[in-house]
């Protein structure tokens, strides 16, 4: 494990989520939380202490949880439906499709402990398909913040947005990356490192690894652009085309299967608009073996060194095709 550096403070983004949620709850009594016996894992006990009647725990029943969220929205509430992402998006996918996306209800789906955050618990508890599942549905923005600042900004944005959305959060510690005054803009990537030889596109727990990889590449004489692409749908096509045109090669990194997630969304734009050499890093279509999320990300070639090596190989491919 060589990322992040041992001397960098790491933060659990759930803390930023609940702090923002409580602030929003103070401002608007229509903000409610719906969960599936997940008060602890969603870290919403503070919300429950302050407004017990507005914490609606349906028990271990995810289909009902999402349906109840849609009904609360019909009654004028702004429900944040919080559950482990694997159960929220897997068990209740048809409710998300019919009751939330198709019915266009003002439901904020919050997938907690997404990706491989429950690493050692095994593949049943991994949520590495949720980008693909939710991205396939019309009408639901899909957002994976990279640090605590972006998490807070995205939660505040979700409250202000009149419609459904899916926030994909992790519990795996990440360092601060974005400035304190960062404002979340749906569908807009942030260029957090300039570069012209290759572009690294990442989100969630992978953004800081991509940044560290860019620093390694710089030492080796390669200048990598880094795009933090929190919004997977709607994807920032302009930033992708610009990256393709200006750097000629794109490497994507995500805590998700390589089938249907961020890499696929980027590749769709690249193929349609400006074909250049690409490589998609992620979970390569397998059920992951035992290990922590950080261990597994390293194992699947997404340590900063692994990302840097993939970027170097990609740059060589680019030169071959010139």
């Amino acid at each position, binding site marked *: 494990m060589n990322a992040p550096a041992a001397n960098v403070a790491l933060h659990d983004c759930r803390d930023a989520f609940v702090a923002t949620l409580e602030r929003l709850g103070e401002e608007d009594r229509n903000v409610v939380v719906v969960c599936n016996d997940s008060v602890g894992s969603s870290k919403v006990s503070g919300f429950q202490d302050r407004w017990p009647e507005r914490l609606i725990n349906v*028990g271990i*029943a995810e289909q*009902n949880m*999402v*349906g109840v969220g*849609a*009904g609360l929205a*019909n009654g004028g509430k702004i429900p944040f439906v919080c559950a482990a992402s694997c159960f929220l998006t897997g068990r209740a996918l048809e409710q998300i499709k019919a009751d939330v996306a198709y*019915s266009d209800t003002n439901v904020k789906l919050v997938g907690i402990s997404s990706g491989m955050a429950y690493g050692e618990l095994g593949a049943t508890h991994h949520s590495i398909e949720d980008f693909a599942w939710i991205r396939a549905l019309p009408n639901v923005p899909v957002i994976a913040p990279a640090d605590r600042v972006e998490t807070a900004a995205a939660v505040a944005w979700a409250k202000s947005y009149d419609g459904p959305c899916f926030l994909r959060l992790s519990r795996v510690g990440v360092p601060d990356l974005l400035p304190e005054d960062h404002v979340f803009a749906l569908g807009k990537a942030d260029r957090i490192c300039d570069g012209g030889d290759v572009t690294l596109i990442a989100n969630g727990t992978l953004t800081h690894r991509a940044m560290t990889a860019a620093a390694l590449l710089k030492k080796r004489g390669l200048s990598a652009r880094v795009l933090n692409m929190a919004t997977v749908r709607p994807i920032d096509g302009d930033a992708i085309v610009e990256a393709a045109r200006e750097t000629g090669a794109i490497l994507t990194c995500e805590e998700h299967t390589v089938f249907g997630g961020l890499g696929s969304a980027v590749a769709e734009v690249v193929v349609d608009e400006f074909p250049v050499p690409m490589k998609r890093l992620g979970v390569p279509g397998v059920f992951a073996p035992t290990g922590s999320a950080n261990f597994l990300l390293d194992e699947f070639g997404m340590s900063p060194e692994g990302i840097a090596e993939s970027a170097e190989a990609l740059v060589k491919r680019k030169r071959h095709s010139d």
Partner: protein
Amino acid sequence: MASNLEQIANWIRRRDLQSVYEAGAGHVGGEMSVIDILTALYFRILSVNPEQPQDPDRDRLVLSKGHTANALYVVLAKRGFIPQDEISTFLKPMSRLNGHPNRTKVPGIETNTGPLGHGLPVAVGMAKAAKLDKAAWRTFVITGDGEMQEGSNWEAIMAAAQFGLDNLTLIIDHNRLQQGARLLDTNNLAPFAPKLEAFGWAVEEIDGHDMDAICAALSSETVVKGKPKCVVAHTNKGQGISFMSDNVAWHHKVPDSVQYEQAMKELEGTAS
């Protein structure tokens, strides 16, 4: 008073039958079984205003058996939510009246249904919202009896009792037939009443084609404080049309011209 409701229901049956016949598709059997319940709701029980379909204080009706959407469209048209002329667009290209109801297109629809087992959880959320606001509006949801085989309904049944949602009424359209066969021969949940009672609900069984009984069971005066209510409405699939009634073949069969004429004649014969 009930006779007036019966006249409206008879008109709705005829218009529904005509619509299915002209469209060449629909779910006429289940529509005939639920029309009396829908008529009582929209013309006696529900506090709704076609001029303000989004009034926050309106009562909510969720048709969880969404495949009988055409019956709801005809009721909504008769009640003034959509133009009556529009019924003839049912299932036509680009019509907003497709085979299952869509709240984003049709005023008066509360949630999009179609996949079974969705309406009751959503209705639980609606009733919970009213409780949070200490608001007086009520929530009604209609499921099919076969639909009760969906596990999501039982998740919602548990939650409604836990939350003490006495502002929620579940009406089970108990016509004893599901798409492919009798409940009895498939996955027989009947009798429903003891099961719902065991989950902490107040339950009433009625003849689902008796307008007085429907209105009484749905009246706010019969709410049991602290408990959600289930009305098990004993109905007939294809009610009002002799050759369709209680006949599993008529789940989504479309009458030919001879059958259509006969069915219409029978319905006209019972119109006063």
